């Protein structure tokens, strides 16, 4: 199908560009340091239940940060390179190009999971036991998809609204809290909990923790929730990107209204 071809080609383009500008993936260099920091704190603390947090929280943080940073700037980037008009004038959808590029970003950023794991095993000699490998792998796959879907929404949102763009920098730490990345959502004040539940990362971090426990009840529907939230982000993102396209063709510029 043609749309898959476009997604694949955009993914390859993103990888090719990243190879020329490795600094874009600086996060892969800083993420292990983050992991080391977390791990040393946790090791001293000695509580095994928070261990999984220490191992994978930095990876989830890096993933979110990358998606925000590169995903959010994706369309502006095309505008600066003056490729946006060529994309709009082509028979393919801009949304497919953006999503394809974001998949590459998320895929590369996912290497931070490997880094965190290696850091924990080899440097800190920790016994990271994944009790339910299937749950873990599925969680990872579905989380990456949800991340890509959410980043697609952000890519559209950042172009459509100047206000959202101003928030870009402040969209990191609050979301680590809301996403239950640093501490389980259940430890947050009760009134904050419903808010966290519309954010896929809160389910993902629960799932990551669950995959390391002997009991992992209800993981299937939790996975489904992550997938649905990701799909919602993707669909919303594609709609927003169509609005960007309409604005460009109407006003003659992609400048923010």
């Amino acid at each position, binding site marked *: 199908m*043609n749309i898959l*071809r*476009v997604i*694949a*080609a*955009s993914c*390859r*383009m993103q990888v*090719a*560009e990243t190879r*020329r*500008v490795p600094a874009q993936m600086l996060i892969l260099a800083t993420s292990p340091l983050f992991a080391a920091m977390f791990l040393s704190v946790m090791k001293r603390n000695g509580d095994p239940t928070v261990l999984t947090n220490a191992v994978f929280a930095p990876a989830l943080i890096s993933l979110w940060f990358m998606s925000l940073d590169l995903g959010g700037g994706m369309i502006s980037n095309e505008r600066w*390179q*003056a*490729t946006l*008009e*060529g*994309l*709009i*004038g*082509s*028979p*393919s959808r801009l949304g497919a*190009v953006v999503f394809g590029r974001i998949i590459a970003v998320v895929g590369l950023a996912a290497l931070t999971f490997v880094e965190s794991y290696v850091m924990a095993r080899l440097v800190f000699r920790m016994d990271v036991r994944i009790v339910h490998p299937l749950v873990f792998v599925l969680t990872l796959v579905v989380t990456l998809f949800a991340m890509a879907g959410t980043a697609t929404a952000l890519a559209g949102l950042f172009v459509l609204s100047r206000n959202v763009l101003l928030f870009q920098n402040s969209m990191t730490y609050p979301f680590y809290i809301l996403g239950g990345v640093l501490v389980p959502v259940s430890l947050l004040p009760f009134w904050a909990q419903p808010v966290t539940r519309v954010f896929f990362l809160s389910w993902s971090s629960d799932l990551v923790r669950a995959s390391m426990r002997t009991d992992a009840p209800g993981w299937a529907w939790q996975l489904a929730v992550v997938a649905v939230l990701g799909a919602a982000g993707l669909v919303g993102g594609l709609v927003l990107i169509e609005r960007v396209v309409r604005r*460009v*063709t*109407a*006003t*003659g510029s992609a*400048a923010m*209204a």
Partner: protein
Amino acid sequence: MTDLAVEVRGLRRVYQARRGAPEARTALDGIDLDVVPGQIHGLLGPNGAGKTTLVKILSTVLLPTEGTARVLGYDVVEHRQDVRTRIGTVFGSERGLYARVSVRRNLLFWASLYGLSGRVGRHRTEQLIERVGLAERADDRVEELSKGMVQRVHLARGLIGDPRMVFLDEPTTGLDPVAALDFRALLGELLAEGRTFLLTTHDLDEAAALCAEVTVIDRGTLLMTSNVRDVGRRLAAPDRVDFDAEDNMVLEKLRGSGLVNGVSELDKPGRYRAEATSKESLTSVIRLLADEGITSLSTSPPTLEEVYLQLVGDRGMAV
């Protein structure tokens, strides 16, 4: 349905005021244009005339404010997808490509956007790289290429979907003379394959050499559409007679005859040009010169450049 490649009727485009541009601007103010298939149609006009705006509307990246435009029979608003699969657009800019990656990677990417499968896309890419003469630089990053080479990548990009109709917005700016000639030759080949071109350019010699028809627009309005061969006849501009004269007697006689607007010396010493007041007086001028024993004479209609200058006026840098 019509058989025209491009059919524009009453086209208007207003850029609304917005942040940074406090006044609304009418870029096109009721343009009509017909482009016959299988030829190169030139679009001329001074800076800010509205050429790029027109090309953008025809290539579906900008919406018209009023009026209609059809490309290959398809409305650019209602049936833009049909238009997009059949056209190619080449902007004469150094930007608009992925500068950090190779020529080949750029073309492969655009090939998939134009719906080509991997195999067909690779084949078309190699073909075009060869055709625009970049075989040796295909693995270089676009940012490492010279301006003229980038221009050729743009051309290849515009042709990747094997379009029937190609829009070229100043494709030869920045090309050296040899490259510009190569470009013209290539355009000739592409034309022979049955494609249609709308070419905007500021190079009037190029327009005269390449185009079958030209349209001149200024400030969003149409000044003229004409067959290039007849362009001189489209104007009230007089015909001229060029001739050699040894002495000033002939010149005085001519000036006193009332048949000419003026006589001026050309670049070559002893060679003069007389502008006849009308088509009828042209014959009398020639007879007068012949009676004086001058046989080395030639007549010519005004060139495209002269017509253009008269239409657009000597505006200098003012826009």
